[in-house]
C-alpha cells in the first residue's frame, strides 16, 4: 500500500557526505567494517599491524606510507592443523598393522580365535 503510493515520485539526490565530496576513500571498506570486531576479539584474531614510511630526502618529507595488517588464522593453526597432524600420525602408526609379514596376519587370526574360544568357554 505504501509502495504503490510513493513509487512514482522518487527524488534522486547525491548521498549526504557531511557537505564534503563523497569518494571511494571516505567509504567503509571491509577492514573498517570488521575493525571493531577484531579489536573486541583481539585474543582470538591476534591482529598484527605494520606501518612503513618511505622518505628519500629526510624522514620529514615522506613519499609513501605503507600500512599492512593481518589477522592470524587461529582456527587453521590451532584447531585444524594439530587435528590433521594428529590423525595422520595415528594413521601412520597404524600402518605397522599391515607390515607385510604373513606370520603377523596369522597371529591376528590366532589371537581372535583364542579370545573367542575363551569367551565362548565362559558362557556355558
Amino acid at each position: 500500500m505504501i509502495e504503490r503510493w510513493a513509487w512514482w515520485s522518487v527524488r534522486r539526490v547525491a548521498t549526504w557526505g557531511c557537505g564534503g565530496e563523497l569518494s571511494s576513500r571516505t567509504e567503509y571498506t571491509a577492514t573498517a567494517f570488521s575493525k571493531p570486531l577484531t579489536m573486541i576479539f583481539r585474543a582470538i584474531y591476534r591482529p598484527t599491524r605494520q606501518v612503513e614510511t618511505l622518505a628519500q630526502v629526510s624522514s620529514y618529507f615522506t613519499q609513501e606510507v605503507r600500512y599492512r595488517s593481518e589477522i592470524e588464522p587461529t582456527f587453521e593453526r590451532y584447531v585444524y592443523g594439530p587435528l590433521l597432524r594428529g590423525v595422520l600420525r595415528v594413521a601412520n602408526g597404524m600402518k605397522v598393522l599391515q607390515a607385510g609379514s604373513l606370520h603377523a596376519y596369522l597371529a591376528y587370526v590366532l589371537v581372535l580365535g583364542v579370545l573367542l574360544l575363551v569367551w565362548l568357554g565362559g558362557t556355558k
Partner: protein
Amino acid sequence: MTPIISEIGRAFGFALLQAAGLLAVAPLLKTTIKKMKARLQNRQGPPLMQGYYDLAKLLRKEPVRSDVASWVFVAGPRVYFAAAVSATTLVPVLIDAAPLEMAGGILLLVGTLALGRFMLATAALDTGSAFGGMGASRDMTIAALAEPALMLGLFTSALAAGSLNLGSLVRTTLQGGVTFHPSDFLAFAGLFIIVIAETGRIPVDNPATHLELTMIHEAMILEYAGPDLALVEWASAVKELLYLTLLVDLFVPAGIATSLAPLAIVVALLAWAGKVLVLAMAVTVTESTNAKLRLFRVPELVSISLGLAFLALAIRFL
C-alpha cells in the same frame, strides 16, 4: 482436510489481528518513553500522539534516495518492517497462546529479528556513505555480542519451562503458579540488559541524537526519508514493544487470559499494558541515569548479562 485449513485460517486471522494491534500501539510506547524521560528532566515532552503525527508526516513526504543506491537500499526497510511484524505473531500477548506458535519458538523469533537487522545493515552500506558503514559495522558488532547472550537468556527460561515454544512456555509458567525462583531475577536482569542493547537505548546507543560518533541505529537510517524512514521508525517501535512483551511473558505472565472470554481479554489487556508501562519506566530510568558507554565498553556490559544468564542457568539446575 477442511478442519486443518480452517484451523490455519483462524491462526492467521489471529496473527493479523495481533500484528495490527501491536503496530497501532507501538508509536504510543515510543512517545510515552520520550514523555517520561522529559518528565524526569521536568520538561513538558511531546504530546502522546506525537508518534502517530510523525509517521503520518513521513508517509506523506516524497521519498529521497541516493543516486548510487541499488534495490537493496529500497528492500532494506521493507524486509526490516516485515521481519519485525512477523516476529510479533510468535509471541503470546493477551492470550496464553501465540497465534503462529506452531510455526516455531524462540529460535524462529531470534532468527527473524536477526534477518531484519542484517537487511537494514546491508541497506545502510549500500549508500556508500561513511555514516551507513559506521552504523552497520557497530550494529553488527553489538549484535555479535548481544545475540548469544539473548539466546542464552531465553534458553534459560525455556529450559525451566521445558520447551522452546513461547506459547507452551507461558502456559507452563502459568500452571506452575506465581513462584519466584531466584534464578528468575538473574535471568530477568541479564535479559533486560540485552533488551536495552537490542533496542538501542542509552547505555549502548543513543536513539535521540544524530551526533556522528555516538549514533549506531540512527547512523544506519540516516539516508532514508519519507515512507522508507516511516517504515524503519515504525518497525523499530514494534520491535521494542515486542521485546518488552517478551520480557513480560517470560517472567511475569500473571493476568494473561487463558480463554477467549471478553472479560478475560480485557483483564489481560490491562495487565499487559500495566506491565509494559512499568518496564517502559524502568527503561526510562536506566536511560536517564546512565551515560552512553564507549563502543569498546559494550562487551563488558554484555559479559555481565552473559554472566547473569549462566548464573541463572547454574542456580536453576544445580
